[in-house]
């Protein structure tokens, strides 16, 4: 999915948080967003992800404003993901259940994504009892499983050990290559951005710089 942002303005109590006259995010690429704390990265993802509707300007997804179809084809993994108080299996299966996928296929898909992210050992644990890093892995699995056209990730590896970071990066890239899904990833790790991103956007006080 291609993204086109025009005249985006976002304020909190009269303070401008985002001011982006024009920004294009290319389809099928991995775009990194980086910038200091408080520069507006999460706010930007909230707006693109349709969670925050209070802004000025327009965001077009393949030329269209946000609608139901677009919403079901994109997803957003929060920095501190919320997992359901059910087993990891049910957490990951949820998006497919919403899409009325049959049980056998759900089982296969969950098994596959667990193996890819190397988290099969978590399958029977309760979602709300996982550590921060484990939650991030499961939340990524829950996002990847339905192969969204647009994947928004807010510091997806912030609580994750170096070994697992490799795995997650590999799977994000694989998702991008195999499905041509667009990825927008907020990261503080410039090396990570260089490793996996095709483009990098630098946000500074709500403006795009370089």
């Amino acid at each position, binding site marked *: 999915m291609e993204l086109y942002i025009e005249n985006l303005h976002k304020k909190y109590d009269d303070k401008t948080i985002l001011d982006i006259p024009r920004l294009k995010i290319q389809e099928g690429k991995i775009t990194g967003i980086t910038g200091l704390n408080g520069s507006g990265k999460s706010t930007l993802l909230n707006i693109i992800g349709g969670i925050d509707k209070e802004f000025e300007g327009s965001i077009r997804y393949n030329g269209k404003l946000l609608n139901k179809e677009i919403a079901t084809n994109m997803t957003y993994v929060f920095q501190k993901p919320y997992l*359901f*108080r059910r087993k990891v299996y049910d957490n990951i299966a*949820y998006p497919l259940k*919403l899409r009325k996928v049959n049980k056998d296929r759900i089982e296969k898909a969950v098994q596959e994504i667990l193996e890819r992210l190397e988290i099969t050992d978590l399958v029977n644990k309760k979602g709300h009892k996982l550590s921060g890093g484990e939650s991030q892995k499961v939340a990524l699995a*829950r996002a990847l499983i339905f192969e969204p056209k647009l994947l928004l990730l807010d510091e997806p590896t912030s609580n994750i050990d170096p070994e697992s970071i490799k795995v997650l990066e590999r799977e994000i890239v694989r998702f991008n290559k195999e499905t041509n899904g667009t990825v927008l990833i907020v990261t503080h790790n410039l090396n990570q951005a260089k490793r996996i991103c095709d483009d990098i956007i630098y946000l500074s006080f709500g403006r795009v710089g370089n």
Partner: protein
Amino acid sequence: MDYIFQGFIEALKLLISFDPEVFKIIILSLFVSTTATILASLIFIPIGIYLGLKKFRGKRIISRIIYTSMSVPSVIVGLVVAILLSRRGPLGHLDIMYTPKAMIIAQTLLVIPLILGLTYNLAKNRGTIIEKVAFTLGGNSIDSIILIIRELKVDILVNVATSFSRAISEVGAVMIVGGNIKGHTRVITTTISMMNSMGDYPMAIALGIILLIISFGINSFIYSYSQED
């Protein structure tokens, strides 16, 4: 000190012998407080969820009103209901002052702010996050309501138990609108309060034991579920 010991012995005798008067009091207590809690819950849990999730102007003021009213003293609720139901009051024609009905009304009004406030808080904090997650995973508004209820049901149950606990242990409201009439509107707390002032300890102790068992039971239920977190 002997009279305390004697009081306990007599109290146990009353309980073991299933003294009809004692048991009538216990049953009425349970009936009034359960009915009040159910009535308040059925109507105000949905309202609390709705208000907590909904964005609207003046939400901050609403939050403040709800939180403040959670701590309203039970005698005040009793007094207001008594004024409304008294013979000359606007609802005097109903002729239900000093009846269990009046007590149910008073306790319902007493627990409404509590159940509303607790549910509202839950929906405003965790509920809105769950709503967002449902949206990001492709759910519509019905999917998100189902998910919210599923995720919050244990906490909601704990809130209901907390409200019941408040109802069954309060004395002010039921005393004022019930009048503590023997065989008619006497409940555990009003009886304890009266027996104590009459110096008749056995029945007060017997009912005190029952009230403690009920309270401990509810609180250990609440505790074991809140440990699920």
